[in-house]
């Protein structure tokens, strides 16, 4: 009797958990479906294709001398110009700086926490860095807008207060806890035997950490980079506030920038439903989804391969 009740509860719970998993996947699927559906007129509607189409987005040089005047995002102009080049450049510039800042520092901090810090200190450092993840991005954006930008301009004499360095650094602060947490978990999971074997062969603590533990945790560290990249591409508020919000097609890190995500945030409130501009914004959304989807899939593939190789070597 008791046994049957237990089995029933167990069965019920299994169904509950399966349903929860299915709902999560269903949501992602439906959101993508909706985004893509709204972007579809860019490919199908002849009226909208006059203003917004793939050639407009990726290959529509205006007749102008300067490069930055040739590729412009001006969707509400009398002759709408919808080149995505300045927005793509803005996204990649800020992401580049952010990763350049967050990846080395995050991994170094993770190495310190897992390999060098005394246990007591580690119990302070780890939650402190993880607490950074709890700072709302609007607060980080505000900090970068008012304080960080002034510091950087005073220190380096930038022409523009809000530029790629400022936006990238603020974004990097948001990525730091992601890189740290995942790398740290990976480093801590490396079997004790690796460290003991390395020490037994006469390696110092630093040699062990860098030449044995870090390579053994490489898949986790790489996974951290991939996740950080995905977050950087999608982050909106920080870049909306700290990037200066000027869609300039320029490679210079001194110029203000506008990202794909910030463009959606700034313009979707005003856009006329069903217009070419509206479809273009949803096309940007689809593009963002594809970029993160492809980078995550590629990342997973590489991680799986690294893992396999490592296991092959150790076996």
């Amino acid at each position, binding site marked *: 009797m008791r046994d049957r009740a*237990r089995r029933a*509860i167990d069965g019920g719970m299994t169904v509950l958990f399966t349903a929860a998993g299915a709902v999560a996947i269903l949501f992602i699927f439906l959101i993508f479906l909706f985004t893509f559906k709204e972007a579809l007129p860019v490919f199908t509607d002849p009226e909208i294709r006059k203003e917004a189409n793939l050639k407009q987005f990726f290959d529509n040089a205006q007749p102008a001398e300067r490069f*930055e*005047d040739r590729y*412009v*995002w*001006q*969707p*509400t*102009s*009398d002759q709408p*110009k919808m080149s995505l080049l*300045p927005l793509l450049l803005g996204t990649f510039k800020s992401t580049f700086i952010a990763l350049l800042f967050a990846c080395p520092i995050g991994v170094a901090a993770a190495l310190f926490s897992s390999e060098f810090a005394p246990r007591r200190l580690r119990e302070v450092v780890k939650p402190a860095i993880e607490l950074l993840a709890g700072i709302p991005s609007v607060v980080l954006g505000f900090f970068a807008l008012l304080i960080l930008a*002034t510091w950087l301009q005073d220190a380096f004499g930038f*022409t*523009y*207060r*809000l530029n790629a360095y400022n936006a990238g650094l603020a974004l990097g602060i948001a990525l730091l806890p992601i890189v740290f947490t995942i790398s740290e978990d990976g480093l801590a999971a490396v079997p004790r035997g690796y460290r003991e074997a390395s020490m037994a062969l006469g390696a110092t603590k630093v040699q062990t950490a860098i030449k044995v533990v870090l390579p053994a945790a490489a898949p986790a560290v790489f996974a951290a980079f991939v996740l950080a990249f995905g977050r950087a591409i999608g982050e909106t508020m920080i870049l909306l506030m700290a990037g*200066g*919000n*000027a*869609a*300039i*097609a320029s490679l210079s890190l001194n*110029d*203000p920038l*506008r990202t794909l995500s910030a463009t959606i945030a*700034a*313009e979707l*409130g*005003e856009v006329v439903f069903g217009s070419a501009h509206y479809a273009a914004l949803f096309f940007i959304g689809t593009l963002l989804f594809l970029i993160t989807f492809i980078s995550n899939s590629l990342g997973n593939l590489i991680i799986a391969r690294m893992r396999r190789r490592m296991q092959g070597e150790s076996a």
Partner: protein
Amino acid sequence: MKNVFPLALSLLIAVAGCKPSETAAPSSDTGAAQPASNRPLSIKGSDTMVILTQRLAEEYMKLNPGRMVQVNGGGSGTGIAALINGTVDLAQASRPMKADELASAEKARGAKVVETPVALDSLAVFLDEANPVKELTLQQLADIYTGKVRSWKDVGGKDAPIILYGRENSSGTYDYFKEHVLNKADFSPKVQTLQGTAAIVNAVSRDVNGIGYGGIAYDKGVRALALKKDAQSPAIAPSVGTVADGTYPLSRKLFFYSLANSPERVTHFVQWTLTPEAQALVKQVGYFPLNTR
């Protein structure tokens, strides 16, 4: 012990199920007892007008206890879209509604739109206080914002790049500037777009080479530039006098938009904003009362 979890779960579900009905009952009671005017009046739109409407709403609520007014920004376009979609009672706008917006409002809401000018605003051009440039012609201003002129040297300042600040394209101020200064030409891609005039003033006050534009009421810590219609005409700084006699080239009306079939709480507020005491507040906030012209 093993049976505790499902029990707790069912208890939780039962409690959660009860909660809404418990709280819903008293609120529906009071809802019926209160007059309809106790529903808050919602206003949304122009960021330029937020401080003005906010101030008017505070005074209005003080004079009329029991009446509630909620004010939100977002830009003129956003407020007008909300009026069309029926999510607010009143839209505040720093530009007139366009013909297609009026048509879609009438179609969606089944009533004509009522326009009420509430104040005069002069659009000021802001520079950092340390910038030596004292005046510009409208043509020079247009050249600066379209990106033709890129150095302060070309308009009588020092040899430094001009840093452009402007508004989002959902802003009525953006539309006004584009139409009246740029003659509908495109802004330079180098314009850094910020949310709200306060943000622009803040940015310009931190940037010696910056230039921005917005409602004159935000003139704090920056200098409002004197403007010339063309090279021969005198430079005119924005002030009550120059806006009143129309010599300052960039002045405009600020509007409330409501629907002809809107409830009493809307008309009561809008009527009040035109009274002398409300118009005195308009002046206090830094805009110009309607009767100045």
